[in-house]
């Protein structure tokens, strides 16, 4: 019941947006819809509802975790966009944002693989008009590339889903394609079709996630769309695609294909991180740089999932902090755009001196993304290192460290001068503050600061509730019990490292 309300409520608000015509009302709907959604999500944590194995929708630990992340991010972005957009937002765009929230909730909640696919494709479609916000040739090209590559990727993922469905034919009796029904019967699935389905899904959903080698739409899409949309894509949509991959991993692991799965996950993960490292060096557009870091973080997520139970825990932790960090960074990018009217790293200098709050947030975001302690990404990346060491994958470990190092250098060398350095002369860049700059600034700074504090706080101290959620999510994916996760090296060592 609560679940249905969760999915439908943003859609209701979206419909209201399309029906009513008053400009100011849309902002209200956006924020109200997001707030209501978050409230319902927090309500579901209080009263977890079990669901039948062949139910189409239901919240299992990974879905629940990712849903919460999406909801939090969406609320932050909603409040931010009230302050960011100067002209009144077109009602279609607000409607699309709310529809995207609705569909992403459906992705997190769906247990049926076919329904998952439908929802993810719908998410792509709702995102497309949002990327094309700033009319012009470059955003058109970005939109077209996004649309086409995502469509091809998701078509491959559909083929993978069908291949997985085909692998169920040796099992007697008709079984629906729900995760709940597939995992207990997984040992009887036809291995050839299962592997084919998993690979196709990995490539297909990986395109949506932004894994190499099909990540070339990401820099364009994140660079040309408004920062609010980019934040939603980077923090929300990627999680949806990641969840889809996780479902396939879940089924494959339950079928005993762990080695095969691990090989491909690690391979794609390392490839993505390496690709991101290559492109980050010498990048000069701030938002494209962020897109490549997003590719990197997706690679880390996938790499972690391939490293067994401890690695999966680290991956979940990484997913949590990735959402928060991407939110911070893209929202800061929006602030920088409003202040400096440029996205190029070479043209922005001395943010810390002129706009201290923004500068601090920029630095916090940078440190968080680079994986510096006490932020959470440090612990998640450490967890992956330990998991790789625990499994004896020394080459993986070496490559991981190397590429992370290169990324660190690239990112810091591009962004740090933005924060420090001599501020650019006033005459060159007269700040044009739009009307109502006072409250707009507050509306923009508030959610960004909130996300930053959340990230910092969760990095310093991890409440047991969060830890339990992460552990059960990891356990579900690797098909083991939470106690095994706790007993494995990862979580304990991470706790050790905190002290």
């Amino acid at each position: 019941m609560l679940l249905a309300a969760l999915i439908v409520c943003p859609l209701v608000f979206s419909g209201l947006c399309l029906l009513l015509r008053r400009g100011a009302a849309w902002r209200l709907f956006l924020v109200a819809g997001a707030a209501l959604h978050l409230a319902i999500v927090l309500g579901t944590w209080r009263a977890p509802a079990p669901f039948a194995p062949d139910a189409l929708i239901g919240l299992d630990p990974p879905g629940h975790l990712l849903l919460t992340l999406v909801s939090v991010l969406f609320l932050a972005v909603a409040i931010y966009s009230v302050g960011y957009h100067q002209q009144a937002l077109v009602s279609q765009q607000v409607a699309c944002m709310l529809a995207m929230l609705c569909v992403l909730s459906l992705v997190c909640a769906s247990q049926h693989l076919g329904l998952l696919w439908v929802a993810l494709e719908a998410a792509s479609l709702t995102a497309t008009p949002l990327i094309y916000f700033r009319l012009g040739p470059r955003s058109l090209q970005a939109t077209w590339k996004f649309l086409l590559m995502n469509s091809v990727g998701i078509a491959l993922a559909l083929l993978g889903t069908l291949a997985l469905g085909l692998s169920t034919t040796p099992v007697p009796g008709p079984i629906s394609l729900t995760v709940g029904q597939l995992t207990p019967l997984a040992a009887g699935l036809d291995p050839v079709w299962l592997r084919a389905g998993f690979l196709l899904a990995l490539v297909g959903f990986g395109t949506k996630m932004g894994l190499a080698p099909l990540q070339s739409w990401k820099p364009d899409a994140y660079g040309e769309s408004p920062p609010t949309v980019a934040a939603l894509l980077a923090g929300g949509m990627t999680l949806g695609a990641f969840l889809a991959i996780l479902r396939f991993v879940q089924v494959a692991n339950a079928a005993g294909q762990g080695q095969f799965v691990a090989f491909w996950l690690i391979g794609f993960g390392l490839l993505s991180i390496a690709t991101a490292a290559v492109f980050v060096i010498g990048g000069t557009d701030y938002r494209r740089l962020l897109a490549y870091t997003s590719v990197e973080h997706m690679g880390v997520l996938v790499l972690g999932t391939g490293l067994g139970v401890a690695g999966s825990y680290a991956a979940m932790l990484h997913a949590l902090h990735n959402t928060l960090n991407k939110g911070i960074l893209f929202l800061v990018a929006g602030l920088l755009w409003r202040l400096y009217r440029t996205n190029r790293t070479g043209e922005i200098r001395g943010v810390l001196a002129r706009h201290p709050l923004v500068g601090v947030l920029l630095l916090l975001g940078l440190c968080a993304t680079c994986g510096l302690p006490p932020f959470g990404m440090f612990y998640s990346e450490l967890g992956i290192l330990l998991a790789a060491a625990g499994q004896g994958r020394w080459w993986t470990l070496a490559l991981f460290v190397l590429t992370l190092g290169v990324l660190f250098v690239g990112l810091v060398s591009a962004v740090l001068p933005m924060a420090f350095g001599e501020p650019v002369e006033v005459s060159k860049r007269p700040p044009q503050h739009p009307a109502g700059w006072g409250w707009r600034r507050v509306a923009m700074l508030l959610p960004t600061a909130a996300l930053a504090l959340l990230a910092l706080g969760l990095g310093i101290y991890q409440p047991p509730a969060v830890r339990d959620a992460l552990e059960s999510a990891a356990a579900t994916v690797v098909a083991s019990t939470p106690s095994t996760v706790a007993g494995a090296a990862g979580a304990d060592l991470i706790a050790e490292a905190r002290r």
Partner: protein
Amino acid sequence: MSLHTVMDAALVLILLLGLTMLSAGRLATCIRIFAIQCLVLAFMPLVTEWIHGEGVTRHALVMLLGTISLKVLLIPWVLLRTIRTGEIHREIEPFIGFTASVVIGAMLAAGAFAVSARLTVPGDPPSDLLVPVALSTLMIGLLVLVSRTKAITQVLGYLVMENGIYLFGLLLLRQMPILVELGILLDVFVGVFVMAIVVYHIRREFDHMDTHVLEPAKES
């Protein structure tokens, strides 16, 4: 004229239509070829159910109506309208040329046949041509998408890919709930709708539909 022969003939026709699309030079011709292919495809669930001896099921009828209304009527109409307002009628020669496209498409089809000869299809497929033709259509769709320059033909390539996957899904006809199948169909339709809108904007912005002439976003 047994049902198996009918199914075989229909599958071969679908493959041939895919290859014809590789050789067609006019955009309207491509769209019509796609419409005919979808029409043949629409009857497949019905024939599959008949071969399995189940008579006319509600599932197959719903899919028939849905496919015909969305893929045979609505989508081609949307695409034809986009062409007409754009007044672009002819495809320029693709990078690899029409003849080479057809030959490569045929080789991909041969490859698909070879691959599916190795795959043991579990269950009881209605025809042993189903998996090869599905894979070939998928690859031909990919070829069209990758080798053509006009945006509308790229959309058609994507749609032909979806047709191939739909054929593949016929193997799972009894396991997929109607809701999910309709959802897939609707997704494809809305996807095409969105694509048509973007193409309209492209044409308005650039006065042509050549996607390879769109300014490549520079890295620096």
